[in-house]
């Protein structure tokens, strides 16, 4: 892909998403960041390797379980729940670790390489940038789920687990990941100094571990422990409360980061004010404005403008 002959000229077919008019039209409607990410992902060796390894593992464990079955001659042998539990643990591993860490890394790179600045001065809104990043994370987890879903459903054929339970667990997992990735993006955007980046990465690993085991045990409770799907779903909604809450906390602070005004030294834009209240710093510039410019009437420029505006009104 990198070697080109000197006579090479670009043709439209050379761009993946322009190759076919229908694909081109579709790609126009999609978040540009997602298109970019797909292009990049297809060339990333690391991602392809992790993905291949994952597919092999899923295949291997399914085959292993299948081979176990005929050796037991109990007529009512049910291996579906066991296989599901095993596959689920394999599947959520990359979803809980590889993808959030990837999000964190890419976010960090965006700030270090100042590419986020180039993004923010395009006509993309910070909301779209954020959603693009989120979609990239979801797309990746979709790929992992896509690879293991046939096997998860296959568990149904091995008996011991109902289709409703399978779908419930998958839905609960996807919902939790959706919340977790949003928080991850916001959280990754917060840290500005290297030490904070390091700390936030470490804490992300910690949170990922908690998430992994929470998902792991709650799914086992449904599949092996026989807890009803409704309880599971309610449990998921309630257990995600800290995530909604942190989303709210980080949202404003991280939103500022997408408009990369590098004005502040402290690593976070969230501060406790004199009265002990948590405040998010909005447009930080006025923090640093010297006294004489804070009062508009004493600011020569603003007062000039005010004067000319009133003049213009009068005429």
């Amino acid at each position: 892909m990198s070697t080109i002959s000197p006579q090479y000229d670009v043709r439209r077919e050379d761009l993946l998403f322009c190759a076919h008019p229908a694909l081109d039209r579709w790609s126009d409607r999609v978040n540009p960041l997602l298109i970019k990410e797909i292009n990049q992902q297809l060339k990333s060796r690391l991602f392809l390797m992790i993905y291949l390894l994952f597919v092999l593992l899923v295949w291997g464990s399914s085959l292993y379980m299948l081979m176990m079955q005929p050796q037991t001659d109990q007529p009512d042998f049910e291996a579906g729940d066991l296989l599901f539990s095993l596959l689920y643990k394999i599947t959520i591993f990359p979803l809980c670790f590889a993808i959030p860490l990837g999000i964190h890394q890419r976010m960090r790179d965006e700030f270090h390489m100042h590419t986020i600045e180039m993004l923010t001065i395009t006509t993309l809104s910070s909301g779209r940038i954020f959603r693009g990043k989120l979609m990239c994370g979801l797309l990746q987890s979709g790929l992992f789920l896509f690879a293991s879903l046939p096997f998860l459903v296959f568990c149904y054929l091995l008996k011991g687990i109902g289709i409703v339970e399978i779908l419930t667990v998958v839905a609960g997992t996807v919902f939790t990941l959706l919340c977790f990735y949003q928080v991850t993006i916001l959280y990754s955007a917060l840290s500005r100094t290297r030490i904070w980046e390091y700390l936030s990465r470490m804490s992300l690993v910690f949170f990922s571990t908690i998430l992994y085991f929470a998902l792991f045990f709650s799914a086992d409770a449904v599949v092996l422990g026989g807890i009803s799907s409704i309880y599971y779903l309610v449990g998921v909604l309630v257990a995600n409360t800290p995530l909604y809450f942190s989303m709210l906390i980080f949202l404003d602070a991280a939103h500022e980061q997408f408009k990369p005004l590098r004005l502040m030294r402290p690593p976070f834009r969230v501060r406790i004010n004199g009265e002990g209240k948590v405040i998010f710093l909005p447009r930080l510039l006025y923090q640093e404005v010297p006294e004489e410019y804070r009062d508009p009437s004493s600011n020569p420029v603003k007062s000039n403008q005010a004067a000319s505006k009133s003049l213009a009104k009068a005429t």
Partner: protein
Amino acid sequence: MSSTELDKSRATSSASTVGAPTDSASPATAINGHPNPGIDAAGTTPERKPMIEVRHLHRFFGKLKAVNNVSFTAYPGQVVGFIGPNGSGKTTTMRILATLDLPTAGDAFVNGYSVIDDPDKVRHAVGFMPDAFGRYPNMDVVEYLDFFARAYGLRGQKRLDALDRVLIFTELRKMAHKPINTLSKGMSQRLGLGRVLIHDPPVLILDEPAAGLDPRARVELRELIAVLSTELGKTILISSHILTELGEICDSAVIIEAGQVLASGTIKDINDKHLKDLADSKNILFITRVLNGQAEALATWLLEQPFVLDANVASELVRFRFEGDVHAQHDLLKRMINSKFEIIEFQRKAETLEDAFMAITKGIVQ
């Protein structure tokens, strides 16, 4: 004319205007000398409205005044050099113009829109090329440009046309499938320029685009910039500390140091003013060339003459500083010849833009 336009034109009259014979010390009078100021006292529609207008821009970082009351204006098709030593506030000003930063006080307008109040509209009108831009991994040239075309909201055929246009203009077609993190400096500068041009903005802000380029790449860049301004009518603000280079690209310049504008106007004006100042200062460097190893003797002789400040010898050349007026100069030369020195050259050292820059800036470090 709407009241806002009126308002704008009033405010403009207090800013110094690039390209006009202005005096930065008294900005209020600046507009009068402009051949086409774009402002009409009678209130009729201006012929040319400024594309970039910086009004009393301040940007402080704590106590550091990175930009301290900078005002200038650039009209369509102008290439304005933004010249200043390291740390003078060029990048800070440009980042404000590109809506990447906000001013502490003052305002800047691009295509008539305020960077504070209408950043989105400014973004449509501006292409900003930073001094160093990050490159995404696992991405090739055409994908990079395609991504930014999408990010600027270009769709379908428009996007493909923009890609073609930019690839042809920057001559990056042959490199279309080269991964961007393997590009040479010259090529990545082209790519940066390509990215800036993808949404075809009327205003380009280029932060030290020539830094790190070899002479050939520099000449090519200069040609691209010339085409952009003359044929495509783009307004270009280009920063550099390599002055001689800007002298060839730009029609006018703003010289900035320690956040303050020291001089602004056409390159010729700046140079002429500097020469005039020099003439007034009566402290001129002369170079004489003498034959037959008389240089040492001439230097000794010169030091005994009135108005000569110092003299030093370099093979057959003698350089000396002289603070007399033209009559004194004439006298000196006459005496020199009468003293039987075999002079074959007597000239005032040519003042280059570089000298003007050195004379105007004082090497202030904040």
